[in-house]
Each structure stands twice: as structure tokens, then as C-alpha cells.
């Protein structure tokens, strides 16, 4: 009897040591996912003065360039303008993002709308948009109406000609503006949006 019990115990111990129990086969398969997001990004390039009238730029100090701290901004400074003088600037806007983008919500603050500052020419690429001279206050709506879109890695060329009203007198456009921080200033802004953004 003792021998039988011992044998049974030995068998149980052996099974336990073997690690047997109730086990089943298993297998794992994997779905490996990588999602990389794109970006919405613009850069101004090649901003420059194209031409100024004969008596502007006495000291050749008019400038048009990309802001050194913000490549989403172009700074234009026109020196020695006078009634009837014109100055033409140009710049490229490049879509450095990964999707088509559009420009919307062009705006010039109302306080900066000077009725004696005109725009005589606006070119997008080779296309002239104006058939007549407009006031600076209408530049934003003129550009807005173009529904400008830019494909990724593509550029849009802009060329704008500014003019001081030829009929402005000294009370309307004073001489030596800018010497005392009283230069005529205006800021044209726009939103760069994803092409599929219909809500902004």
C-alpha cells in the first residue's frame, strides 16, 4: 500500500515538473501603422524693387525685402515719393507646405486707408488684374476676388505698382513725410489656408 501511494505521488510530481497542464497553441500577427502629418507653410522669396520714378530714391534707399525675422512678411519702404510718382515692387509667395493652399481674407486696416495712395497695376504672374487705377483701400478686395491657390512646391508671383495721387496738394500729401516718423504706412495681410478649409 505504501509503495502504491509513493508511486502515485512520484507520478504527480513528475507531471508537475514537466510543466504540463492545459496549454494551447497561440500566434500573434501585427498591423504596423505609421501616420505622418503634413504642414501648412509659406515663404516669401525674391522680394525687390522693380522700378521707381525718376526723382524718387535720391539716395537710393527704397527697399522691398523679406523680413529677416519672419519669412511670412514682406517689408516695403518707398522713399521720396511725390504726387504722380510711381514705384513698383515684386515678390514671390511659395507654398512650402505639403498640400494645396489658398490665400483669403486680404485686408488693409481701415485706419491705414489713405485716399491719396493709389495702385495702378497688380500682376499675378503675367496677368494684369486692373483695368484702371484703384485706391489702396481696394487692393485687398481686388486680390480676394482672385481666389488665389498655390500648389505645394509652387510659387505665385506678385507685382504691384503704387502711386501718389497726381492731383494731391501739400495739404493732402505733405512734403518730407517720414522724417519725423510720420510716413504713410499700410499693412496688407492675408490668411494662408488649407485648400479644403471652407470655414475660414
Amino acid at each position, binding site marked *: 500500500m505504501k509503495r502504491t501511494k509513493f508511486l502515485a505521488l512520484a507520478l504527480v510530481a513528475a507531471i508537475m515538473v514537466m510543466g504540463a497542464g492545459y496549454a*494551447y*497553441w*497561440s*500566434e*500573434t*500577427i*501585427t*498591423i*504596423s*501603422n*505609421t*501616420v*505622418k*502629418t*503634413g*504642414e*501648412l*507653410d509659406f515663404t516669401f522669396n525674391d522680394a525687390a524693387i522693380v522700378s521707381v520714378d525718376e526723382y524718387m530714391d535720391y539716395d537710393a534707399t527704397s527697399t522691398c525685402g523679406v523680413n529677416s525675422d519672419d519669412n511670412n512678411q514682406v517689408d516695403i519702404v518707398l522713399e521720396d515719393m511725390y504726387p504722380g510718382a510711381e514705384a513698383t515692387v515684386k515678390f514671390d509667395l511659395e507654398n512650402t507646405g*505639403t*498640400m*494645396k493652399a489658398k490665400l483669403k481674407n486680404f485686408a488693409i486696416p481701415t485706419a491705414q486707408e489713405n485716399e491719396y495712395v493709389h495702385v495702378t497695376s497688380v500682376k499675378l504672374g503675367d496677368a494684369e488684374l486692373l483695368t484702371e487705377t484703384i485706391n489702396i483701400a481696394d487692393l485687398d478686395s481686388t486680390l480676394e476676388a482672385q481666389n488665389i491657390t498655390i500648389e*505645394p512646391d509652387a510659387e505665385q508671383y506678385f507685382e504691384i505698382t503704387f502711386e501718389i495721387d497726381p492731383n494731391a496738394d501739400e495739404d493732402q500729401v505733405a512734403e518730407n513725410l517720414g522724417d519725423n516718423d510720420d510716413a504713410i504706412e499700410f499693412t496688407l495681410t492675408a490668411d494662408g489656408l*488649407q*485648400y*479644403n*478649409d*471652407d*470655414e475660414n
Partner: protein
Amino acid sequence: MKKSRVLALTLVVAVVLMGAGYAYWSETLTINNTVKTGELDLQFDYPTYDGDYDDKYPYSDDYMKVDSYFEDEKHKLVFELEDVYPGGGGWLNFKIKNTGTVPAKLTSITPSILSDEANMKDEFNYALHSIKLYYPIKIGQWEWTYVIPVDFPMYATTFNDFVGKLQSKLSQYTLEPGAYFVINAESGGYDIQLPSTVTSDDFEDETFKFDLLLNFDQAH
């Protein structure tokens, strides 16, 4: 008398020396055993399809890239989306087949997040548009494929919810040998989308990489 005893003793010794005793015929029978085991094997299988889309401009999908392919002898399915933007996403149609000899059942899905520096996992919308179970049945000389629609479109707005629902749906059924799940739909399949409500620049040019480990056990 002594002579008889000596003779008997001699006979006994002789018999003992001959090795005889009490002997019977004998024969050996053999049971020759060969045990070959089957296998538990699940694989992704053809066909797979992938695509990208914009929720407002379904055909304007030139700005994203999508790719899918097998690795590890079809034990891994790789799904890659690139340049996804708010409102855009990608989809994947695929098949999981029991290519083994024993039935199998999904017991769990283990997510493994490999890269998510911008903490985007819960910014995406996830969807499963259709899951169907196919299994072949043979009647006489004919083979039929029986389709069980497993579920309707399912949506999840968090990563964990997506994993939980995928596990819940796939684990309901046993995959018999030769049977397969198809995650497929006309308008997508297994979808990952960045919703148009995402406005933060923090999610531009970022990577979210994760594995889903589908753990199957032999069904019993």
C-alpha cells in the same frame, strides 16, 4: 534406490544445463507511431487595398501618400500614411485568414505605441466600416463560401476605444481553417483620419507610429 536418485539428479542437471525449463512460443508485435502536428497559423492575405481621401473633396487626394504591404511572410501588415492634414485620412482594406489546420480565435489585441511625441493618438478619428467573416463549406463536390456580416460601421474618437472595439468585434467568432475575416467597404475599411477640427500647429510635421498585435489562440 541410490541409483534411481542419482539418475533423477543427473536428468535434472542435464535439463537445467540445456536451458530448458517450461518455454512457450512467443512473437513480438509492434505499433509503429508517427505523429505529425498541425499548426496554428494566421496570416494577412491578398487582396489588400489602400487609399487616401479628404472628407470634403473625395477626389482631391493628391497631397497625401498611402502605402501598404506585407512583411514577415504575411504575418505583418504595414500601413503607412504620409502628409495627412486636417480633414484628410487614409483607409485600408485587408483580410485575415486562418491558414493553419486548427481553429483559431482572437483573444486580445495588444497596442504598442512606438512614436507619438506630439501626443496625437487621441486626435485622430478611427473607423471600421465593415467586417465580414467568410468560411468555406463543402457540400458534395461543391465548395461554398458562407458570409456572416460581423458588424456595421463602427467609429471611435480615441485610440483605446478603437482598439477595444476592434478586439470586441473580431473576437466574437472562431476562424475555422480556411476561414477569413475581410475588413472592407466601398468607402473605406480600416480608416484613420485627422479631423478638420484640428487647428493646432503642434500637430504639423509629426509622426504617430503604433503596432496592433492581434493575439490568436487555438480555439477549444
